[in-house]
């Protein structure tokens, strides 16, 4: 059984690996690393299950290619065993989501924006 700490470390490693694959020549930066939190705290934080949420950014200020970077991220995710899907572009929002073993990752790119954002959440783990 995996612990929440192990899950958090694994998620961080995956996000950084995918971020690096999506933007050649640059390493991703962990922008937020929050947890453990109760995912349903907005109503009531007394539930037993907890998750961690991590966000990573990567990008080259000289390169604005959200579509290509999201596609590259999806390819990297698939190669690493994630089940990934690119969603239809919405008003310049390029988005893909992926799942593996209870973990979730969402990749966001935006028209005119050089930064690629990858957010991830661990499975809910009690205790």
């Amino acid at each position, binding site marked *: 059984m*995996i612990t929440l700490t192990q*899950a958090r470390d*694994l998620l961080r490693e995956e996000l950084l690996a995918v971020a690096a694959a999506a933007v050649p020549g*640059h390493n991703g*930066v*962990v*922008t*937020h*690393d*929050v*947890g453990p*939190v*109760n*995912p*349903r*705290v*907005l*109503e*009531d*934080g*007394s*539930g*037993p*299950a907890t*998750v961690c*949420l991590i*966000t990573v*950014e*990567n*990008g*080259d*200020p*000289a390169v604005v290619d959200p579509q290509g970077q999201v596609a590259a991220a999806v390819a990297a995710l*698939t190669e690493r065993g994630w*089940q*990934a*899907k690119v969603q239809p572009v*919405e*008003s310049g*929002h390029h988005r893909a*989501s992926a*799942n*593996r*073993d*209870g*973990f*979730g990752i*969402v990749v*966001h790119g*935006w028209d005119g*924006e050089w*930064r690629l*954002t990858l*957010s991830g*959440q*661990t*499975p*809910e*783990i009690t205790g």
Partner: protein
Amino acid sequence: MTDAEPQFDQLVARVASLPPAKAAREVRAHFSTLPEPAARALVTSRTDRLGGLDGVPAELRYQANHLRLVAARERLRDRIAGGRASRDEVLRFNTLTEMLQPVGQRLDVDAEGNRIVVPVHRQFLLVQPEGQGRMVEVLGDLARAEQVAVLVPGMNNDLDKVRSQLARAQDLQTEAGPGSATIVWLGYDAPLGLEAAMSKQRSIEAAPLLARFAAGLDTEVAPGTDRTLIGNSYGGQVAGQAMLREQVRFDRVILTGCPGIDPGVRSAADFVPPGVQLFVARAPGDYISYAEPHGPDPASFPDAIRFETNDGTVAVRGHLSYFEYDSESLRNIGRIIRGDLAAVTRTSTTAEEESRVLPGVSWAEPLRQAAASPAAVPLAKVFDGVRALGKISSPPPRPVTDGVRARRAPGPGVSKRPEGPTR
């Protein structure tokens, strides 16, 4: 003491009785003419008052509230060191310590266009470290934001839940995209327990506080900034009372899992300012919305836009998961914040359809009748008592479909919510 201190004290006394918008503008005007050294001096000499005064420039409030957190933590540290601290005080010490940690970092460019990593510090527009605790936290740059979303949490939220609120604010900001800022407004004493949440007392007390905050926000953001107010659960009751009683105005309003506004409020036009769009989410099985403890469910209002919470992949069910990671509910909230309204997916299922257990048999209407009966408050007491004993916890969501609206089928490679880690 310089002249700035007595002038500030007079300002605070004067604006206390003014309407929110006028008060905030007067405070902002005062600070716009104040020399920077004098303003900085007030941060240390009038820390508590300045930190919570709407209309004061955000950067000054961030500094003041940081100092307030440090001072409160030091007081608790002394009590812990002296062996006099209660369990709650130790918990609060840990909370305050965490609130002083940087929120993270971000990528940016320097003047030469080179990529740099910039630390992101916590930004509090309000901190009240004592008792139940209050706080208002900002993610993003308010002065430069093109869209700002204010999230009002519901019952059972106190200062010690700040970490989870931060996580939700981050999710919202990520979904809303570049140029957005999000704010968690826990600037009121949320009801602790179902019995307290059956009363409007806390929301009525919160309404003028939210009105003053909104007025202060108007002085901080650039003209034309899109502002969205989000009320979740009892937070929707707070947002509703603020609009109803204080004429609080945002560009758009989102209510998720709303317990109703008032028995007399039966449409958006009854409480939302003219020209403001009301977006409402009610997930299948949301027992609070079905019960309507404070009035008709806004999801049934003819002039509200009811948005979808489920897309067949990530389940949003019941009352607790409107902000579920990667859900259609969270994505729709992001779309609304950034103004991509054409992309918002909608639903029109009825409570009866959503709660049907057998043909012709559903549980939403019996629940509504029970909530309206004299037994509701005693039942709430029992619920709170059992919950306090740890007998009731929040069940994880399960995959659901509304059963009425045609849904997008999961694409190849997209699984239902997995059951747990295997590595």
